C-alpha cells in the first residue's frame, strides 16, 4: 500500500540471542561474552549520554567495574534527569505477597501487555532481573514504602492483578534516580567517571562505520567540543515531546537518537506512543506541558462521567443512578485497573459522545468519595496526599471535596533505536539503553515497567555485554579527519540556525508540530488523517528552515538555540512516526487504527500481516526511509486477542 512512502530493505535477525530454553539464555550470553581483565579496563573509555535511570545506573556500574567513563547530560546536575518525575512505582517478580507472582508471570503479562510486539527473550530477561533491581536499590538506601513489620510494601498497578509494584509514595522515580545518582557521584569522586553536566550531544563521531565518540556543545559558553571513546552509550530518554504537550520534562528530546539514526542506527516502531489515561486536562493556550496524576490513583479512585450528554450539573448533584462508571461496566474483571491504552481510549470515547466534563468537555471524573468513605480521609491522605496537593495547586480545586478531572496525554514512547540482545544498535559500538531504545515494551508498556527496564539495562544488562564488544574489537585512536568532519557538521548546523533570522519563534513551530501529531497520529489514527499529516509536516519543516528566529549567539548560554536544534530533529522524526503509523494498518496497543477494530470497537491486531518490529533506516534528506522487518516469534506466550472484559 504505502510503498510510495518507503522502500523495503533486508529483514533483520533477532541478533545475539542464544539458543536454548528461555530461562537459560541470559546466563549463556553472559558466559559467552568476552571479558576484559581489570587492569585493562582502566584504559578503555566509554561515553554515556544521559544520567537518568538508565544512564545513571550504567555510569555507576561501569565506573565501579573499572572503565573510564565520560558522562554527559544537558541539565545542570545528573539528579535532574527526567526519570526523577516518575511517580507510581517499579515492578519486580518478588512474590512477597504470595499472590502467585513469579518471573514467568511477569514475563507473560509483559509480553501480553505489549500486545505481542516485543521480543520474548528480552522480556524474560527483564522479568528475571527485576528481582535484583529491588535488592540493589534497597542496598543503596532507597527508602521504599514499608509495612509495619519492616518489610517492603507493594501495590498493584494498571493492567495487573497481582501486587508487585514497589514504590516510595508518589515519588518512586525520584528515589530510584537519587540512588543511581549517588552511586554515580561516588564513582566521580573515585575518579572513574568524569561528569559533564550542561553539555548537549549534537552528533556522533564515526570512523569505519563505528561509533567512536561524540561532539557536544557546552551549554554555558557555547563551546563545541569533541570526545572519543571505545564505545558510546545513548541513555537519552524518550521523544514524547514531539507532541509538544506531554508529561515529559520540557528538555526531553530526540536529538541524540536522531543524529545516530542519520548515521545508520535503525529507528524501530517510532509510532508506538503510550497515552496515559490519568493526566490533568489542558486548561488554556498558555499551557507548556501536561501533568500526570499517578496511575496508582486508579486503585482507589473510580472513573465516571454523567450518563446524559452535556450534563452541566456539579458532580455532587449528579445522583448515583445517573452516573456511568464506564470502566467497571465495560471491563468488569479489571474495572478501573484496565491497561492504559484501554482506559485512555474509553475516556476519549465518552468525551466524543459529549459526556466529558470540565472545560471543553475533555475530561472524566476520578472520584475518591467511596475510598474516603471506606478508608477514611486520613488513609487516603497518607496514600495519595502529595498527588492531591499537586492537583489542587494546578487546578485550584480540592480533590477531597470534588472529584478530580483527568484526561489522557502523551506519556512514553515505546519506539526508539533498534538494539539487539546486547543492547547494541545497528551502528557498531553504539549501545542504546532505557527509554531511548525500543526493546522490551512492544506496543503498550504496562505501568511500572519503564523504571524496571531503565535500571535493568543500566545496572545489569549493558555492563555484561559491552565488554564483549570492547574486548573483541581493536579500536585504534580516532583519526583527526573523522573528528573534524563531525565537528564541521555541528558547527554548520548551528551557524545555519542562527543565520536564518526569520520572524517565527521556535516554540510556535513546536506547538504547531505537536498539534499535527496529536490530531493525526495520536490516540486514534486513520489512513486519511495520517496522509494529511504527511502533507503538513514537510511543509512546516520547510517553513521552519526559512522563518525560524533564533536570538543571540552561538558562543553563550542560548536556550533558543538549544530548543531550535531539538525542534528541527522533531520535525524529521514526526514524519517518520507518521509513515510508520500509516504502514501499520492494524490496531495494537496504544496505536489504534480506526479502520482496524472488531464489532465491539476493540482494537483488532493483525499478527499475520504485522507480527514484526518495523525498523527504519535513514537514506538521506528527502529520500524514502527503508523498512527492515524483524519477525517476532512467540515460543512461550501464544498470541491471543487481548481481553480485559
Amino acid at each position, binding site marked *: 500500500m504505502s510503498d510510495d512512502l518507503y522502500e523495503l530493505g533486508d529483514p533483520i535477525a533477532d541478533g545475539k540471542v542464544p539458543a536454548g530454553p528461555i530461562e537459560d539464555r541470559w546466563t549463556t550470553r553472559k558466559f559467552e561474552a568476552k571479558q576484559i581483565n581489570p587492569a585493562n579496563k582502566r584504559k578503555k573509555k566509554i561515553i554515556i549520554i544521559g544520567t537518568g535511570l538508565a544512564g545513571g545506573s550504567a555510569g555507576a556500574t561501569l565506573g*565501579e567495574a573499572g572503565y573510564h567513563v565520560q558522562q554527559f547530560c544537558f541539565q545542570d546536575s545528573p539528579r535532574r534527569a527526567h526519570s526523577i518525575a516518575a511517580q507510581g512505582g517499579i515492578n519486580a517478580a518478588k512474590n512477597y505477597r504470595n499472590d502467585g507472582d513469579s518471573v514467568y508471570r511477569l514475563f507473560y503479562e509483559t509480553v501480553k501487555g505489549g500486545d505481542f510486539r516485543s521480543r520474548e527473550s528480552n522480556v524474560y530477561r527483564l522479568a528475571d532481573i527485576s528481582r*535484583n533491581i529491588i535488592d540493589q536499590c534497597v*542496598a543503596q*538506601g532507597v527508602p521504599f514504602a514499608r509495612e509495619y513489620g519492616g518489610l517492603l510494601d507493594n501495590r498493584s498497578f494498571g493492567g495487573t492483578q497481582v501486587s508487585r509494584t514497589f514504590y516510595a509514595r508518589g515519588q518512586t522515580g525520584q528515589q530510584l534516580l537519587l540512588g543511581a545518582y549517588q552511586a554515580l557521584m561516588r564513582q566521580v569522586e573515585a575518579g572513574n567517571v568524569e561528569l559533564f553536566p550542561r553539555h548537549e550531544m549534537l552528533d556522533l563521531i564515526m570512523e569505519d562505520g563505528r561509533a567512536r565518540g561524540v561532539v557536544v556543545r557546552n551549554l554555558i559558553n557555547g563551546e563545541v567540543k569533541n570526545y572519543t571513546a571505545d564505545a558510546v552509550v545513548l541513555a537519552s530518554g524518550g521523544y514524547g515531546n514531539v507532541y509538544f504537550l506531554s508529561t515529559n520534562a520540557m528538555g526531553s528530546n530526540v536529538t541524540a537518537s536522531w543524529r545516530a539514526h542519520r548515521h545508520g542506527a535503525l529507528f524501530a516502531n517510532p509510532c508506538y506512543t503510550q497515552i496515559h489515561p490519568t493526566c490533568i486536562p489542558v486548561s*488554556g493556550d*498558555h499551557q507548556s506541558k501536561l501533568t500526570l496524576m499517578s496511575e496508582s490513583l486508579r486503585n482507589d479512585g473510580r472513573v465516571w462521567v454523567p450518563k446524559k450528554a452535556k450534563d452541566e450539573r456539579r458532580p455532587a448533584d449528579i445522583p448515583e443512578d445517573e452516573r456511568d462508571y464506564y470502566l467497571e461496566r465495560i471491563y468488569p474483571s479489571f474495572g478501573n485497573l484496565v491497561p492504559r491504552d484501554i482506559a485512555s481510549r474509553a475516556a476519549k470515547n465518552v468525551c466524543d459522545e459529549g459526556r466529558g466534563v470540565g472545560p471543553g468537555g475533555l475530561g472524566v471524573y476520578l472520584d475518591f468519595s467511596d475510598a474516603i468513605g471506606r478508608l477514611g480521609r486520613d488513609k487516603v491522605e497518607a496514600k495519595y496526599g502529595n498527588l492531591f496537593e499537586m492537583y489542587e495547586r494546578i487546578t485550584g480545586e480540592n480533590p477531597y471535596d470534588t472529584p478530580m478531572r483527568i484526561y489522557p496525554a502523551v506519556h512514553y514512547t515505546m519506539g526508539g533505536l533498534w538494539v539487539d540482545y546486547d543492547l547494541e544498535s545497528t551502528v557498531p559500538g553504539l549501545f542504546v539503553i532505557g527509554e531511548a531504545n525500543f526493546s522490551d515494551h512492544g506496543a503498550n508498556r504496562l505501568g511500572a515497567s519503564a523504571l524496571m527496564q531503565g535500571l535493568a539495562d543500566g545496572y*545489569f544488562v549493558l555492563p555484561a555485554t559491552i565488554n564483549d564488544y570492547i574486548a573483541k574489537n581493536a579500536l585504534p585512536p580516532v583519526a583527526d579527519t573523522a573528528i573534524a568532519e563531525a565537528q564541521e557538521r555541528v558547527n554548520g548546523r548551528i551557524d545555519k540556525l542562527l543565520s536564518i533570522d526569520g520572524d517565527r519563534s521556535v516554540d510556535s513551530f513546536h506547538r504547531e508540530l505537536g498539534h499535527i501529531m496529536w490530531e493525526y497520529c495520536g490516540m486514534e489514527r486513520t489512513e486519511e488523517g495520517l496522509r494529511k499529516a504527511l502533507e503538513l509536516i514537510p511543509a512546516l519543516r520547510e517553513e521552519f528552515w526559512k522563518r525560524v528566529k533564533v536570538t543571540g549567539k552561538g558562543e553563550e548560554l542560548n536556550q533558543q538555540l538549544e530548543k531550535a536544534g531539538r525542534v528541527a530533529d522533531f520535525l524529521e522524526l514526526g514524519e517518520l512516526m507518521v509513515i510508520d503509523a500509516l504502514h501499520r494498518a492494524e490496531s495494537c496497543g496504544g496505536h489504534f487504527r480506526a479502520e482496524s477494530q472488531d464489532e465491539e470497537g476493540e482494537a483488532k491486531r493483525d499478527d499475520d500481516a504485522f507480527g514484526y518490529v518495523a525498523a527504519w533506516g535513514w537514506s538521506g534528506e528527502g529520500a524514502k526511509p527503508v523498512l527492515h522487518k524483524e519477525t517476532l516469534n512467540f515460543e512461550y506466550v501464544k498470541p491471543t486477542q487481548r481481553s480485559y472484559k
Partner: protein
Amino acid sequence: MKLTLRVWRQSDPQDKGKMVEYKLDDISPDASFLEMLDVLNEKLIADGSEPVAFDHDCREGICGMCSLVINGTPHGPERNTTTCQLHMRKFKDGEVIDVEPWRAKAFPVVKDLVVDRSAFDRIIQSGGYITAPTGTAPEAHSTPVPKPDADAAFEAAECIGCGACVAACPNGSAALFLGAKITHLGLMPQGQPERWDRAVSMLDTHDDEGFGGCTNTGECTVACPKGIGLDVIGRLNGDYLKASAGGKKK
C-alpha cells in the same frame, strides 16, 4: 491579568546586571509562573530582543531545576511550592513582581536568572551515598527497616536539591540540604557503616565550597518547597559532633 515584571538581566558572569521592567497583559490566572515567563519571552522574541534565560525542566515540582527569587522569596509567596508549581492566580491583577536569581556566594550567576549549583553535586560526591557495588546486594527482605524510620528517611530524601535553602539563608548556608541527605542515609540500617565519615566529609566540602555557617535562623525551612524541617540540621550537627569526638576522618 495585567502585570509589571522587574526582571534581573545579566548577560554573563562578568556583567554587573540590572533589573529591567516589562509590562504584560492578558496573562491567564491558570498559567504557572514559568508559563507566564514563556509568554514574556515570546513577546521579547517578537520584538527582536533577547528572551530571559531561566532554568526549568520537569515543571512538576520534582526535578529541582527551577530557581527564581520572586518578590524577595525563593520560589515565591506560596509555602511548600516550587516556582514551576506556582500559579498566577496567587497574584493580584496589576501587581508589580520582582524576579531575581538565587543569590549566594556558592551559586554564581551564569546568565539572567540561571545560576551554577554544581557545588551541590560536589557535596554529594564527598560522601552522600551508600557504598553498594552492583550485583552483590543481599536479598531485599534480609534487612527489615522499621516503618517509622523508613518514612522519616523518605521525608528527608524528598529534598529536590534546588538550593532555595541557600538562597534564603542570610549566611548562604546549605545546612538544610546537607542535613536532609545525612538524615535520609543515617536513618537507614544500610547507611550506618559510613555514617560518621559521611558527616565529616560532607560538612568539610560544604565549607570549602563557600557556603556559610548555620546560625539557626530557620529561613531555609520556610523557603523549602518540600517542607523539610529544621530537625535534619539537628541531626547533621549531632552526627558531626559525635564523629569529630570519635576522631573520624581527620
